[in-house]
Every structure is written in C-alpha cells, then in structure tokens.
C-alpha cells in the first residue's frame, strides 16, 4: 500500500489479535503495518483444530491464520514477519519503532498484540538438549520415547493431561512439581494418579540437564530438604505455562505483576494512542475468539483516535 516508513497505525504482533486489528484498520483505509517476530498467526497456528470459532465448524489454526493474513493483505495491510522491535518510543503524537531490518518506522497509533509463549525452565542444559531429549510437545515427540522412562515437569492441566497421554509411549512417567499440590483440575489429577505408569516427585524442581550427545539424567532438588538427586531419564517434557511477550514494553506501558498489559474497556493503555489486545493483556480467558474481540475494540478505538488526531492537525494548519 505504501513505501513510506510512516503508517497511520502499526500493530506489534501477528497472532489472531494482530491480524484482526490489521483487517479492521486497513479496511478503514488507514495505512497499517503489522510487525511480528515469528510467523503471522502466532500461537493459533499451533492449534491442530479450532472447533469453537463461530461460523466455522472446524478448521486448523494454520488454515485460519492463513485466511486472516490473506484478508488483512487484501485490504492493503503490510505484514513484516520474523522481524523484531529493536527500540520503541510510544510517547507523543508520533510513535517511533526501530525494527531488526535496520529501518525506523513511525505511526500515529500503535496496537500491542505480542501474545505469549511457552515458559521454559531456563536451567543449565535446556538449550543444548532441546530435541535431544527435551521436548515441549507430547503429540509431536511422544513416539520418540516409546518404551523409555521420562519426566514431565509441571503441575497444571497441560502437564497432567500430557503425562497421561505420554504413557501410551513411555514405560514410566515421573511428574516433577514444585508444590505439594497440583494447580490442575481435579479430573486431570485423578486420571494421572490412577495411571500405574505415573509416579510423582513433589515439592521439587529440576535444576540441571546432564548428558553428552543426548539427555541422560537430570538433577532434581527437593525444595523442602535442599537435597539434590541425580535422576536417570531418557527424556523430559516441560509444561509450565505461558508468559506474555512483553519484555520489550518494560517501562513503556503500565503492566501488572505478571507483565500483562493493563488496558481499559477501549483496550487503551495508559499512553494516548497506544492500545493492546490478545493474550498479553490482563484478562481471565485467553481464546482465539477473545483475542479477535479485544482487537476489534482496539482497532476501532485506534481508528477513532487517529481520526481526531488528523482533524486536530487540519485545524492547526
């Protein structure tokens, strides 16, 4: 739509929230750039089947994100994938972003839709053994561990449900959890406890991954006694929740203690002209549909803000 580095609006994040904002803004004839550090579609593309998106009986997240992307582009929205925000100035009437392509972009309004990502343990050996014994996806990698003894880290619904599903492959599954109780729903806890292949190490944390070419053992620390044991295992699956991708916004917009962006009912942040939507904002329910709904509000509010900004500029000149 434009080769200019100035856009009416820039959307940071390309998940369902970001793409929805892009569709609404560009359809309103506002020049719009979506910047995403991964592939457009965000975590939605990782969903095998979406069966609760109104109007669509069943669709894969990959297909739905492709349709949204196509829709946004059809209205003239520019999408820059695999691009990160290097620096950001949200103050004033003109917002400024420096991107990893080395260029600086400006906009009248910014919509923040950075989403979230799977939490990692961040302990020694995690990067080295990813794909060589460490996995974050039971359905993807479970069959590599057929007949083997594995560890699952976490205490939420995902951890317990995936531990049960992994017993289809593994000969033994040990769940390591830092508390003396699980956060998962009771049905998931009961199912895991009833499975003879599953055992539990509670009030403990995984401290280190050991091995040469592939994972051979882990160090597990008992958080009550402080004692560390070397635990022989063939694999570790990590399911310890999600974190919002908001590190680049520290000190830029108001966030809560969990680094989620605080917004009002118009999805406006504390900075004029800056809105936020999707999984990175403070809210209870995180769904594709809620992300789309948030982003619709954010885009309409941003359109209104830009409209008034242009009227004021016109009167000033």
């Amino acid at each position, binding site marked *: 739509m434009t080769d200019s580095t100035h856009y009416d609006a820039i959307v940071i994040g390309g998940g369902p929230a970001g793409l929805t904002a892009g569709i609404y803004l560009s359809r309103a004839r506002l020049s719009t750039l979506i910047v995403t550090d991964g592939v457009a579609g965000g975590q939605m593309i990782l969903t095998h089947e979406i069966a609760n998106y109104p109007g669509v009986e069943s669709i894969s997240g990959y297909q739905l994100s492709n349709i949204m992307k196509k829709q946004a582009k059809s209205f003239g929205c520019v999408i820059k994938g695999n691009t990160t925000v290097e620096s950001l100035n949200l103050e004033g009437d003109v917002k400024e972003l420096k991107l990893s392509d080395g260029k600086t972009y400006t906009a009248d309004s910014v919509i923040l839709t950075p989403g979230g990502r799977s939490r990692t343990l961040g302990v020694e050996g995690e990067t080295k053994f990813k*794909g060589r014994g460490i996995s974050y996806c039971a359905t*993807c*990698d479970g069959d590599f561990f057929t007949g083997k003894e594995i560890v699952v880290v976490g205490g939420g619904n995902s951890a317990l449900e995936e531990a049960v599903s992994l017993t289809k492959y593994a000969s033994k599954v040990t769940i390591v959890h830092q508390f003396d109780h699980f956060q998962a729903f009771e049905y998931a806890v009961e199912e895991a406890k009833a499975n003879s292949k599953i055992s539990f190490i509670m009030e403990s944390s995984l401290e280190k991954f050991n091995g040469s070419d592939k994972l051979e053992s882990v160090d597990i620390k008992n958080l009550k006694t402080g004692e560390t044991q070397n635990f022989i295992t063939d694999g570790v699956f990590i399911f310890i929740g999600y974190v919002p991708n908001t590190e680049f916004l520290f000190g830029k917009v108001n966030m809560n203690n969990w680094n989620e962006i605080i917004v009002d009912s118009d999805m406006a942040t504390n900075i004029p002209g800056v809105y936020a939507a999707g999984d990175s904002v403070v809210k209870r329910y995180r769904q594709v549909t809620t992300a789309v709904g948030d982003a619709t509000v954010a885009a309409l509010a941003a359109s209104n803000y830009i409209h008034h900004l242009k009227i004021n500029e016109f009167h000033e000149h």
Partner: protein
Amino acid sequence: MLYTNLHHVMTASEHQKLIAENENVMICCGRMGPMCIPVYGIMEDLESEYTHVKFADMEFDNPEAYVIRDVPEVRGFMGIPFTMYYKKGKLVKATSSIQSVSQVKSILDKEFVPVMAD
C-alpha cells in the same frame, strides 16, 4: 500431506534429485504440529531473501522420508522437525526440534554463503 506453501518432497528419488540439482538446499522434515509449523513459516518468509537456497519440506511419516530419518547425522534426535541443510548434494548441518529465525538464518549464512559476482 503438509499444508505449507513450500515445495513438497514426496519420494526418496525426488529428494536425491533436489539435492543433486541445487547447490544449497534446506529441507524441513516434520508434521503439521506445534514444533514444525513455525519452521515452515520461517522458511516461507526466507524464500524471497535467500534466492540462492532451495527450500522444501518432507512429511516425517512418509515412508520415503527414510532418506532423512535414517542418516547417521540424526542419530540422537528426539524431536521433530528434523531440518537438513545440503550443500552440493552433501549434508552439512542438521537440527532437531523447533528453531528460531535467527538460528535458521545463522546456519544459512554460515553454510550457504552466496557467491558474489565481480
């Protein structure tokens, strides 16, 4: 069937032909799952930037994918996708599980340095 916009390698002979006829080839061997889809997306995005590299995918569960699953370089791999980088028909690098764009680019930049015209 992989629902990507990449070139799909369906047979072992097609795999052989691809790496024989192209100097630089990157093949992502996986499924339509959470660890694989981001890598396909990265490859789709990089296709226009790395015109000297041929990008393709191959379905992990295709029996013909033994040409990737059974090579010694992937022994010890326990996470899909298996991503293979071939130069002049030879495997020069292989990775297991999800990769970021910076990880993929660093391998492409190191292994597939473009020849600059005088």
